[in-house]
């Protein structure tokens, strides 16, 4: 009984796995699109070229660190400092990879190398929930990754080119899309009192860490707390 994430997960009936992955990402794609617009607008305001803006979205493909980089460029920070800060912001993905890896076991290394680029908060969350209920392989994760990558790149471009015409993309409350969608994912997984306790404990640790160390470490802290609680509550 290691798979705690089972019922209520997205169904993958006869659909092709790639489509299933992309479809299950839809609730997240919308929020990714909204944030990408903001990124594009801010990048242009920070006088990045279109090439710089787009290569960052396509090659780095990590929202929080891209916003942080824009702020650091503005302050005239050294390049190395920006790279190190990016590493810190994205360290949580190490935990994602380790826990998702077993579900992609047996995938050829070049294929896995490509799939890895699609690993972000959203695709990780959607894939972990799906993988726990059904066999989910590289196809599904490819779809989930594309469901994050495509809207991010497209909206970065739209934000850059249409800056000033689009208005505030958050005016319809879309700044809450990420949190709202993850709320749904979280609640769908709370299937026992133990798991409610694990979520509460992780949230508490994340709040404390955010307060003292800032938002860079809070997600990793919450994830590690849950992992630790899972280890210590396991039957010997």
């Amino acid at each position, binding site marked *: 009984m290691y798979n705690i994430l089972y019922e209520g997960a997205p169904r993958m009936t006869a659909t092709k796995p790639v489509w299933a992955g992309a479809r299950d990402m*839809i609730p997240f794609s919308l929020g990714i699109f909204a944030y990408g617009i903001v990124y594009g607008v801010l990048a242009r305001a920070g006088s990045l070229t279109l090439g710089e803006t787009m290569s960052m979205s396509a090659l780095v493909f990590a929202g929080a660190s891209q916003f942080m980089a824009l702020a650091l460029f503005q302050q005239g920070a050294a390049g190395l400092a920006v790279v190190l800060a990016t590493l810190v912001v994205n360290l949580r993905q190490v935990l994602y990879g380790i826990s998702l890896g077993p579900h992609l076991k047996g995938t050829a290394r070049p294929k896995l190398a490509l799939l890895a680029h699609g690993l972000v908060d959203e695709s990780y969350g959607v894939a972990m929930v799906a993988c726990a209920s059904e066999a989910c392989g590289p196809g599904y994760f490819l779809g989930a990754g594309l469901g994050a990558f495509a809207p991010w790149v497209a909206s970065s471009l739209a934000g850059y080119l249409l800056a000033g015409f689009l208005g505030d993309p958050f005016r319809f409350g879309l700044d809450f899309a990420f949190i709202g969608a993850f709320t749904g994912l979280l609640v769908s997984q709370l299937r026992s009192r133990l798991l409610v306790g694990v979520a509460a404990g992780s949230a508490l640790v994340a709040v404390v860490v955010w307060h003292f160390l800032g938002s860079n470490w809070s997600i990793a802290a919450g994830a590690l707390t849950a992992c630790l609680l899972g280890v210590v509550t396991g039957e010997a």
Partner: protein
Amino acid sequence: MKPDLYPVILGMAAVTYLTRFPPLWLGGRVGFPPRVRRGLSFLPIGAFAAMVVPPVAFHQEAHRFNLYVPAALAACLVALFTRKPLPSMLAGVACLAALRAFLGG
């Protein structure tokens, strides 16, 4: 004159990829003992909770109310009934948009 940003962008891409591929590859190759596997299966719940609770708790709105709190309650309520991310997201976003329109935020 702005310095050349491309080397910095490539550096950012390289370190980010290092947080993606090697762990994913290792995770599929290392056989974890049962207790660790159990811990790893709990990991998403901690990550989800950490993505939701602190940003709501520390959110600062343009005016004095933290409107993420009612939006999160709406998302939670819908999530309890539907157990799906899309309706929860829509409920939270709609609640936030309505409150901002009402309060003139």
